[in-house]
């Protein structure tokens, strides 16, 4: 990138090369573990475009967006409604196909994979948590959480999963149906479902958006613990400044592109 004309840059010298950063935070993060950031990111999206046709009119939600996510980071994606942040998350997690551009997972182009491979990545690499929980109403909490095991061709009878239920304080709730659970419990079951196949990456689309602040904070702690203790890469779309404040990296999306100079805009998007 041409640094010409950009102001307020910070610089850091590593192995005799000078690296420029938008601000001191980024520089400090780099200087702690320069090898990680010099290597291939876990997820790299490159010049992503996504058009939706809505009743004849086509809307460009992503316009040539590029971003990197490194292994083990907690990344928050911020932006106003309709900015394309959820679409970006969907692209990273292979829930949608870009109109143009590429998505790389550990250097491999995964934007054009056949259905089988995509399903395999969904079950092995990614764990999703949604704002609406999206549990299946006629299955019990345990059966919901065990669904990914089924699609991965494993037995739904898993001691590891039961242990997770205990860890999450849900062992009494395993045979309850979603409507018998509180919002926080439902979302924790949804998180257990995301973790059932022990994925490397947990993707959350406003996971605390439907929860009150206390419950939301508890869930956030669980998520951050997954990131810190279990080294899972965590990518979360959020409106919440508190969540963003605890992230290793913040990607601010506006009008289908990344806002580079985000720290100054942070207040604006924290609704």
């Amino acid at each position, binding site marked *: 990138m041409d640094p010409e004309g950009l102001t307020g840059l910070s610089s850091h010298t590593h192995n005799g090369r000078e690296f420029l950063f938008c601000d001191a935070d980024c520089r400090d993060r780099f200087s702690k573990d320069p090898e990680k950031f010099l290597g291939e990111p876990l997820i790299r999206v490159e010049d992503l475009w996504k058009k939706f046709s809505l009743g004849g009119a086509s809307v460009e939600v992503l316009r040539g967006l590029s971003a990197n996510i490194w292994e083990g980071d907690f990344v928050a994606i911020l932006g106003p409604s309709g900015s394309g942040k959820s679409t970006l998350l*969907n692209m990273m997690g292979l*829930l949608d196909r870009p109109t143009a551009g590429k998505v790389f997972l550990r250097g491999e182009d995964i934007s054009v994979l056949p*259905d*089988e491979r995509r399903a395999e990545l969904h079950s092995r690499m990614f764990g999703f948590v949604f704002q609406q929980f999206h549990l299946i109403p*006629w299955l019990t909490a345990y059966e919901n959480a065990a669904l990914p095991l*089924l*699609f991965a061709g494993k037995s739904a009878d898993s001691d590891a999963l039961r242990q997770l239920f205990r860890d999450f304080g849900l062992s009494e709730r395993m045979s309850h149906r979603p409507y018998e659970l509180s919002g926080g419990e439902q979302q924790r079951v949804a998180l257990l479902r995301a973790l059932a196949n022990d994925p490397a990456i947990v993707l959350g689309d406003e996971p605390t958006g439907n929860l009150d602040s206390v419950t939301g904070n508890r869930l956030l702690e669980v998520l951050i613990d997954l990131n810190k203790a279990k080294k899972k890469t965590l990518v979360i779309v959020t409106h919440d400044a508190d969540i963003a404040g605890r992230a290793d990296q913040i990607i601010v999306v506006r009008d289908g592109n990344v806002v580079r100079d985000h720290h100054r805009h942070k207040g604006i998007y924290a609704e």
Partner: protein
Amino acid sequence: MNMLTQFLRLILKGLRHRSLRSWLTILGIVIGIMLVVAIFALGGGIQNAVARLLQQFGSDLVIILPGKETNPFLALAGGQKFKEGDLLDLNKVPGVRLVVPMSVAVLNVEFKGEIKAVMVHSQPWREYRVVAEESKALKLIAGAWPENEETRELILGYRAAFKLFKISPKVGDDLIIKGRRFRVAGIFSEVGLQDEDNQMWMSHKDFQALTSQRGKASTAAVKLEKDVDVDLVAKQIKAQLATQEVVRDFSVLTPEKANQIVGSILSVVELSLLIIALISLIVGAIGIMNTMYTSVLERTRQIGVMKAIGASSDHILSLFLIESGIIGLVGGVLGIAFGLMTAYAAGFAAEQFGIRGLFSFASLDFFGLAVILIIAFITGVVSGVLPARQAAKLEPAEALRYE
């Protein structure tokens, strides 16, 4: 536990969750299959019954009826009557062995204070005995043929003897018809046809005296000599009968022709029943399709979730196909069960009216039933394919956005 059984559990839970809708869809299939099975199971029995009916005509009998040939059976009811002499003149036609003029009337018959309306068949005893024994396989199980035309004797059909009256009349008992006593001379063996078994037979002379229809007869059975050309003799009978002027329109029914008429009526009936069954099967299939489409729409978001957590398009496709297959299969099994029950009930009801052997479990074609079951399953799967494919090809994000 392998994937298929886990899928089955998942699907069954879903079906139970929407149990009313699931059962209604199954009902759609059940009705179609039920009709097909009932028709299928009764078809053989009906054919047997018709075969027995045709046997009554005998293979060497030509039947003469008033009314046009296109519709001879209808004309019987209120038809004109031949002069007996004209009919007996047919004896002169070469190839004719004997002529039996016959009449029928419904008369009140009293036995031990009980009065029943009975179809009374009249004919000369001597000639009819030849026809009955040689051409119709109609045998006496009790008593003997009357020797004389004027002794006021009756032969009872099997049901007329054993089912009609509370106390069954025996050979030698007297029945009262129009205030006159008639002695039971014999009882015929069971034919398995309502008309025949419920009848009583009396001599032509007695009948004419009772009904004051002297010298008249409504039909005649003509027994032919051995090894004659049936069609040729029938033509000659026709020509001879045309000389009389009492009955202008009459039919000369050879066994072959009777076969054709009954057969064509039967095939029209069977065909229309099958078409009805087929239509209801199609309606059932549309029902499955409709349910599957609705449930695809309803579950669009769940499909999105399932894909997000690792379900491939093939997984989604199989989930929906297995579901519609189960609906088809359950519908098929229940349809077959209800169809057999319907056939059994129909057979039972027919038996009450004297038509035996319409349905029997022993004569069921299990291979045919298996084919019907497979058809039901395939109907389910095929009607599930379209909605299932639509469900499977959705992008997860698209599906999740669905409201």
